[in-house]
């Protein structure tokens, strides 16, 4: 039987206007609409594709975060995951604490992970640390930014995207953590029956203490959240008419050279 775990994170919708809170310790979260981290959708989908062709495989989704809104886990269950684990925590844990909490939750489930999936990065803190840290904690290899996945028995062939669109083709035999990129698959939408069924699926809930994470595990501290400085208004040139074009382009090229000094 194949035990598949998928790490999902809940992040502010990409349209969100981000505002630092009054003491600059985090952002204002009261009016945020939460979504599943977009890259995690590829992770959930890949797990479900494997489940579909491996009888007896189970897909467990794990999330560390607030319990008020469980959009990400619900979406994963509605897409077809079997069960969910929520480790209740505040908004601003660091990557080390999150990885350790997921490791603790996997241990506590009593299942030995055969495959672990995650998104290649979360679009809130963009740290790109949890997959690699978790793999290290689970004593597993990991392959990140994965855009191609083939499985033959326990043997996996994974394509990792590197610079300039080049690919590294990895071969792994045995348990591995796969951090997924866009292009790996096309995530399914949760169907209405899926959404109904999701309500009855098990969702275990643990505290950070339950999974062995304490304040002493904090490695990274954020403070002083501010908005980036606004750029002063730039120069705008009208060049719709044929007669204007050559002159405008000459001017702008000159400004790039002599004023901005970037060419």
């Amino acid at each position, binding site marked *: 039987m194949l035990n598949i775990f998928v790490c999902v994170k809940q992040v502010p919708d990409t349209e969100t206007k981000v505002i630092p809170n009054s003491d600059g310790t985090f952002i204002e979260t009261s009016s945020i609409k939460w979504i599943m981290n977009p890259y995690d959708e590829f992770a959930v989908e890949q797990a479900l594709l494997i489940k579909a062709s491996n009888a007896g495989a189970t897909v467990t989704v794990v999330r560390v975060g607030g319990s008020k809104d469980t959009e990400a886990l619900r979406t994963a269950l509605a897409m077809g995951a079997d069960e969910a684990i929520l480790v209740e925590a505040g908004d601003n844990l660091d*990557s080390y604490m999150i990885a350790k909490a997921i490791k603790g939750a996997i241990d506590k489930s009593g299942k030995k992970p055969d495959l672990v999936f995650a998104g290649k990065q979360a679009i809130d803190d963009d740290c790109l640390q949890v997959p690699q840290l978790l793999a290290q904690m689970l004593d597993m*290899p990991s*392959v990140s930014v994965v855009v191609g996945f083939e499985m033959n028995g326990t043997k996996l062939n994974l394509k990792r*995207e590197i610079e300039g*669109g080049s690919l590294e083709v990895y*071969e792994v035999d045995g348990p591995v953590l796969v951090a997924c990129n866009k292009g790996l698959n096309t995530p399914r939408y949760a169907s209405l029956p899926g959404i109904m069924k999701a309500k009855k699926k098990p969702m275990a809930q643990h505290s950070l203490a339950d999974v062995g994470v304490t304040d002493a595990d904090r490695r990274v*501290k954020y403070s002083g959240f*501010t908005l980036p400085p606004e750029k002063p208004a730039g120069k*705008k040139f009208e060049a719709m008419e044929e007669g204007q074009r050559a002159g*405008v382009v000459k001017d702008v090229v000159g400004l790039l050279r002599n004023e901005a000094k970037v060419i």
Partner: protein
Amino acid sequence: MSKVLVLAEIQGDDVKSVAYEILGKLAGQSIDVAAIGSIPAAAAEKLAKHGAENIHSLKGDKLDHYTPEGWSNALKNFMSDKGYDYVFSGATATGKDLIPRLAGMFDAGMASEVVNFTFDGGTFAGTRPLFAGKCLAKVEIQGPKPHFVTVRPNALGMPTSENAKAGATNEASVDAGTIRAFVKEIVKGASEKLDLTEANVIVSGGRAMKNAENFKILNELADVIGATVGASRAAVDSGFAPHAMQVGQTGKTVSPSLYIACGISGAIQHLAGMRTSKVIVAINTDPDAPIFTKADYGIVGDLFEIVPLMTKEFKALLG
């Protein structure tokens, strides 16, 4: 004063330039540089000029190509008796994957993708964008040492003054340990250009490009000014360009000196990926396109007219 290791990546007969950017900012600390492979002599000379006291070329079996396990085992092996306080690397494709794993081996903390930092009293404090650059925060590291930091390429800029140090070169043999996920093959991408995340100049096309063939005019401009070509998500989703070229919140975050946006409206998710560019040029037919609010130089015009003119003008200027 802290003892710092800067991990460099060999590229041709030099190392990736982000290593020099980091060195420039570390002046005043005791700095070693290491890379897996043979650091070319010319690069070693430059590294010494910019503050490297020792320059280590790390060699061993199964290290010719990057693998997360092989390279992290090798570096852990090398670092074991050195007592570094900090380890720095560029936030490159390799750095982003390698450093968190290495930090995990030391149970240590890591600050990702910093765009600036200070070293008051030998202690690191960084600045980094969060929520796709919609805000900035200060980042500090605590707990067991060494502390790990990745720096976004092009963010610090090249050092403007020299800080020459001994730059003693050394070869060390290191052990790649057990590699369970190994690289069987490398499939070269179409582009020989610098990756978007490291490019100093970028020309991007949006939905207005209409098709993949039309990207030719962007490639021609890019060739003249040494740029890498990017795209908006609309262009990627319409099949004009591969996802590897997507700039934005769900694509690549870039910070070149010059970003030229052609036929891109400037949606919040696109801006998130390129707003830290030093100079932004926008070419758009719609005078009210949001991209103009972020552009240093905006041209209200048809990209199919403007881009070729620009190519011609740059050609004349740059010879």
